[in-house]
């Protein structure tokens, strides 16, 4: 289901030279292709981050194993920062990841889906494991100390902050899903508003 986007990304309304390998089903979606790429650059629904420095992290998976991005070399990676007490963005993003896997079919087996908590204080390894497993047994939950979490977020230019609510606190956080190719290079960010189909198209285009 393609819904019209309510606001195209800034600077997205430039005309590109028609790409002979056009994969887009709807010409209106061409509006979403980003500028700043050459005429042969693939059109993405998400944000093309090719050429941007790839971030890294030093965290633990839910079995206590130390993990860095390089551990997933050889696999395309979808990386999302969130927290388990999140009422809707994180479940929506993780549910969409399941749908994306379904759309990619056999190609999805190579994909690694990483969920980094920005709330390690409340997201214990047990909760994080149960949470990621509740979505898909293959999803990988990662957490670290407050410092490691900050370093990981900064290296991906992810913003997050604790915001007190009436009785506890919530986390504002960047809701982008980062795509890293099998060589370990950052390629794109999927916007939260993208449908699973649009994300799957971006993954096919890039990975």
């Amino acid at each position, binding site marked *: *289901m*393609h*819904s*019209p*986007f*309510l*606001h195209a990304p800034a600077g997205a309304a430039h005309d590109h030279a028609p790409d002979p390998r056009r994969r887009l089903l709807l010409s209106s979606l061409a509006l979403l292709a980003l500028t700043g790429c050459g005429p042969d650059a693939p059109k993405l629904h998400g944000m093309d981050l090719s050429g941007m420095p790839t971030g890294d992290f030093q965290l633990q998976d839910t079995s206590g194993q130390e993990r860095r991005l390089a551990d997933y070399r050889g696999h395309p990676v979808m990386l999302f920062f969130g927290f*388990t*007490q*999140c*009422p*809707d*963005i994180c*479940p*929506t993003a*993780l*549910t*969409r990841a*399941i*749908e994306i896997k379904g759309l990619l079919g056999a190609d999805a087996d190579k994909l690694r889906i990483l969920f980094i908590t920005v709330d390690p204080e*409340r997201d*214990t390894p*047990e*909760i994080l494991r*149960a*949470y990621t497993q*509740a*979505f*898909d047994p293959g999803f990988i939950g990662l957490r670290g100390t407050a410092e490691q979490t900050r370093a990981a977020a900064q290296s991906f230019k992810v*913003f997050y902050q604790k*915001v007190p*609510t*009436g*009785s*506890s606190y*919530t986390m*504002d*956080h*960047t*809701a*982008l899903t980062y795509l890293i190719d099998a060589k370990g290079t950052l390629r794109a*960010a999927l*916007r*939260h*508003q*993208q*449908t699973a189909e649009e994300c799957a198209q971006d993954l096919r285009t890039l990975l």
Partner: protein
Amino acid sequence: MKKISIKPLAAAFAVCALALFNQAAVAQDATLKIDEPWVRATVPNQHATGVFMRLTSSAAGRLVAVESDAAKHVEVHEMAMQDNVMKMRQVPGIDLPAGQAVELKPGGYHVMLIDLARQITPGDHIALTLVVEDAKQQQRRVPVDAIARPLNASAAPAADHAHKK
């Protein structure tokens, strides 16, 4: 014992009053339509989750509070996306314009259950009470039974959501 205890009388009166009040509440529910109330299931030790529903009030009103025994704190929150950052804030209430459906759905308003009394598993029924104010600031209480959907229940496509700039 010559003293007549008024406790049983008071209790009987309270029961009657409650029955009347409940009838009144049911009668008043006609002015507030609640569609598809659901709550997202949780994993063990998860402290919080969201409740969603669609409210249509026949007369202009305002949702001012939500109560539930399922959690220590119940808050009404609004979510907005700004520059790809998710921001969630507690709001003092939600306006219910006459005859207009107001959605509490992923990406917008939701009721937040914080410090859950227990894990919520798919199929569970969670009882809530909506406190709704009419234009004259008369409050009434409307019971809601929200059904738990799996943690990975598919939300409406996010692209449908209006985003605040």
